[in-house]
């Protein structure tokens, strides 16, 4: 039933004997320490930081039954919209959001290679015109985006905030909330979290975050969590191994009326439920990672995350919204090298994901989209680029190949020398919600932003 393979492959959960369990513990411990060593080596590049065997740390706040909305405010905030699915929406579609954290430069992603103004403002950092890919006479892709340029994708230019500011935290929070103009600070849930609630059908993993903490998925109802490996649940899967089952019984008995014990007890119940469903899904023998797969070997943290995302979506856990965050885009210095490396990882990771989606049979119902808190300053500061405003977003999947959005003029920058926003990012999010997932945009975003008619 589960045709995909999962990372970290100790054998399946069924019929563990005492000695098999002991072996498993031993091999797991050895594996963890080997991983620790690898992690330490790779720390400088951060390349393996997504490869921890445990779940990712500080996962999304929203957490399904018992744990959901468990923040100090509890319950539904007065300002949080309640999502609605539009009648006749295509069922089962999945949205994968790749968050390029730090602020991705749109002008290095989709390069205005024939603009003399671009070369004037970026004497050191302009991408040479003879290197851009799939150029149309005005714009072309960064040479690192080789696979995606060949595959074809939709680009959306000019996406940004209204009345933006230059703080990572304010702008990240606004994207998380779906708050284009900074007036939605009372929103307690994240935009992606509201999507999971709108799509909630009781599935065990409607939303999942890879690569760590995100407020994007904070929600009220649907079951969501952060995960780096499904095998992390091995000791919670039903087993006729009394040491595991006695432990699981104890976890299930946790509870209490006080706020935090109740939250923790709810989280344990959710974990036990998920482990039970994974186990019922059968064949765990196939949880092997193809370490030579280009997206794992060359895709860095993001490649690893999207490799796991493909397995998760293929596992039939009802997953509809996936968040993958990757850092390294805050290129105040050394922009040229960083952009080359970052975009090459993005390229191999997204292309590899779409290829795996094809192999696993869900390529026609999955969309990969980028977000980023802001673009970068148009004039360079030497070797780098300071915080910017509007940027170019990428949309890959069964949606064709075209340049969309509205190109911000390079000769009319804002007061901080940044690109002006031509498409409020709430309209971009509205497009993903309504035109792809079939969730009415006005029901999950304040201000009823109009979808772009892209998909």
């Amino acid at each position: 039933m589960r045709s995909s393979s999962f990372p970290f492959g100790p054998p399946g959960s069924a019929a563990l004997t005492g000695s098999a369990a002991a072996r498993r513990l031993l091999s797991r411990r050895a594996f963890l320490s080997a991983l620790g060593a690898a992690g330490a080596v790779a720390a400088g590049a951060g390349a393996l930081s997504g490869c921890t065997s445990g779940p990712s740390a500080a996962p999304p706040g929203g957490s399904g039954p018992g744990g959901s909305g468990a923040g100090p405010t509890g319950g539904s905030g007065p300002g949080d919209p309640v999502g609605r699915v539009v009648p006749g929406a295509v069922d089962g579609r999945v949205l994968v959001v790749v968050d390029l954290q730090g602020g991705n430069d749109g002008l290095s992603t989709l390069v205005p290679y024939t603009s003399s103004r671009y070369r004037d403002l970026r004497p050191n950092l302009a991408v040479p015109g003879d290197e851009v890919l799939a150029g149309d006479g005005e714009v072309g892709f960064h040479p690192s985006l080789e696979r995606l340029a060949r595959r074809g994708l939709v680009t959306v230019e000019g996406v940004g905030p209204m009345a933006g500011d230059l703080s990572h935290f304010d702008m990240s929070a606004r994207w998380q909330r779906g708050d284009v103009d900074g007036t939605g600070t009372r929103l307690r849930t994240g935009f992606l979290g509201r999507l999971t609630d709108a799509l909630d059908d009781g599935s065990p993993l409607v939303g999942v975050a890879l690569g760590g903490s995100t407020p994007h998925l904070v929600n009220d109802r649907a079951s969501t969590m952060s995960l780096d490996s499904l095998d992390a649940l091995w000791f919670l899967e039903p087993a006729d191994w009394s040491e595991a089952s006695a432990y699981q019984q104890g976890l299930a008995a946790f509870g209490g009326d006080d706020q935090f014990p109740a939250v923790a007890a709810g989280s344990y119940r959710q974990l036990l439920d998920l482990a039970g469903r994974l186990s019922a899904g059968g064949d765990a023998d196939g949880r092997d990672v193809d370490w030579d797969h280009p997206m794992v070997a060359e895709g860095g943290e993001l490649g690893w995350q999207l490799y796991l995302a493909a397995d998760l979506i293929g596992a039939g856990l009802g997953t509809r919204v996936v968040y993958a965050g990757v850092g390294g885009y805050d290129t105040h210095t050394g922009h040229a090298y960083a952009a080359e490396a970052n975009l090459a990882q993005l390229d191999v990771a997204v292309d590899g994901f779409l290829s795996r989606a094809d192999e696993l049979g869900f390529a026609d119902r999955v969309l990969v989209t980028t977000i980023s808190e802001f673009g970068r300053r148009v004039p360079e500061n030497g070797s780098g680029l300071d915080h910017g405003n509007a940027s170019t977003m990428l949309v890959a999947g069964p949606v064709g190949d075209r340049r969309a959005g509205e190109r911000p003029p390079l000769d009319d920058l804002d007061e901080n020398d940044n690109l002006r926003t031509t498409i409020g990012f709430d309209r971009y999010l509205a497009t993903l919600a309504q035109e792809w997932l079939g969730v009415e945009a006005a029901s999950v975003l304040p201000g009823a932003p109009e979808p772009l008619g892209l998909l």
Partner: protein
Amino acid sequence: MIERHPGRARAAHLLRRTSLTVNPSRIDQLADLSWDDAVADVLSRATGADAGDDPPATDDWTDLVTWWVNRMIDPTSGLRERMAWFWHGLLTTSADKVSSAGLIRRQLTDLRSGALGDYRTILHAYVTGGALVQYLDADGSMAANPNENLARELMELFTVGRDAYTEDDVRSAARALAGWVVEDGEVSWRRENAFVAPLLFKGVQDDWDTAKVVDFLCDQPETAQRVSTRLWHHLVGTDLDPAAAADLGKWWQEQELAVPDLVERVLLDPAAATARLNRPRSGLEWFTAYRAVVGTPADDAWTLQSLGQMPYQPPNVGGWPDGPRWLSPGSLLARASLAFDTDWEAMAPGRSGTVDDILDRCGLQELSTATRAALDAVRSSDELPVEEAQHTRWRLALSSPEFSLA
């Protein structure tokens, strides 16, 4: 909640908040003292001793994290390591952007030795340390075309906060902070890169430089209020209403930002003694408590990555977010898998299997009836031999909701 012994429960609460472990012998020492006397004991122990050994010289920064985590776990560790950890959360740095472990070592030495000093001194050392200069892109910043990152974060995160500066202030501060260079693991200031003419910053025309900007920002009431409110939240776990926050900040400014005074004032507030188990332990707080209980050295600091809180690997310059997310399924999964996978052979000496002994060792002097019942329900049987039943009780105590709370 079941309070097993009032004095011990009070002592355990104070230790959970003021150190990074709950040492049973310290509970014994504090159990008969009043809250105020116990607070005085914790403070005088910490301020009466220096930071001890410096971190080891190494070219691998993860050695420094391992060393630091072992300092935190040491039975003699107390408020100093707690405060050094607090400062690292506020004044954070990622090793990914720092070129040498020596610079991290220098910052860690400053944080630990200065942890119980005053905020102004801590901030000066942090801002002019090579690790932060590199982390926030001030390395090589030239006044003619300055990098804004350090200037912005200095105001937004470390001092006055988001509403107390303008983009013009960022540009001016960036010029004033220009001139720092890191070479061969040493930080220096180059006059030829700096802005040496008078400059308008925050409406004041002056010969601004790094020291003057930091001093000016430390003199602003917003700085005292923001930092003291953050420490209140860390130590007490509750929100402070705006009037109380303003009072606390004003008072702390009058104490010239002295850290021990602020800690004492916060802990002597009636709320501090009574607001118990009201915030989650973060990933590192759980890990140090866990390691201290199982008694094995923390030679695997990378495990902290899976717990979401590896020192010197913050998610961003804002540090690690707190709140109920630390009790989400993913977070508890990481904790439970460590608890389940404990090396029982290594902790065998002194290990006992009775529920009360386990709770004492874990510092769980108050707990919910559900947790107590879950532990009491574990009985040995034909399927669950005595030793496995004992392991199961330990695993459940370490996985319990209460052990995940601060």
